[in-house]
């Protein structure tokens, strides 16, 4: 479908929400134990899904292959581009956190990582995805066909 129409294949919105839930839990636990490696590790985990599509994200893949078959079919599907953009922003923040840790700016590193944790947690628990809204705002300004 995607190749023919120029739009990517729609996805089950519960996949990105699972991904965001794991990200939130991982970053909060990492912060709790001052385990700074959590920032580059989650940047590396988010990157493939953000850059190449949902099937390449480890937790998105885990959801699709292990969890989704045990759930009822999704009632609605969504465009994958907004959550991919949101994940890319998350990668950017986590790379910033990694650089801050490397430069000795620990507090800044954790502030950046906790911003990602809080926004991902909000998206996972309510579906309100700030990064997705930024994508929609930018896409409309650029005239990208969405729905």
């Amino acid at each position: 479908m995607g190749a023919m129409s120029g739009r990517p294949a729609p996805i089950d919105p519960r996949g990105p929400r699972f991904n965001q839930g794991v990200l939130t839990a991982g970053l909060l636990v990492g912060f709790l134990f001052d385990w700074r490696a959590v920032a580059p590790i989650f940047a590396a985990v988010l990157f493939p899904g953000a850059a190449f599509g949902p099937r390449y994200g480890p937790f998105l893949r885990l959801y699709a292959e292990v969890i989704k078959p045990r759930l009822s079919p999704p009632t609605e599907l969504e465009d994958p581009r907004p959550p991919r953009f949101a994940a890319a922003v998350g990668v950017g923040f986590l790379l910033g956190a990694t650089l801050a840790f490397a430069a000795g700016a620990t507090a800044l590193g954790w502030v950046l990582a906790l911003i990602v944790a809080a926004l991902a947690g909000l998206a996972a628990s309510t579906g309100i995805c700030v990064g997705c809204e930024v994508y929609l705002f930018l896409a409309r300004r650029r005239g990208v066909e969405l729905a």
Partner: protein
Amino acid sequence: MFFAVPRLAIVLAIVFALLLATRLYRQWRRRLAADQRPVPRLPAALLDGAERTWVVFTTPMCASCGPVVERLREAEPDARVVTVDATREIPLADAFRVRSAPTVLLADMTGEVQTRLVGAAAVDSYVRSPA
């Protein structure tokens, strides 16, 4: 200064804020669902004089909405099918209690809503066997 606050307190504060946001969001959704205001007629600009008009409320992230529009056009070639972006036409979407996309309304030529379908599955089912 940042680490003067125990880490556990910061984590608990974030978790508490997320739980509070979730609770408030669910309360807001329930309040919207319980809305009992009468449904108005669809504006004449959407109907454009057609006898039957399908109004499909979409959102930019709705991947099911395009196929729903195509399905309706195939099923009822004589009917008018219009789409409304609910995130842009907020007063209109609010007046017709659009809470998710696609929400599909079928109106007669006076704008009175005859049928309301929420979700692609409901549209599929209606098209297969109209009520």
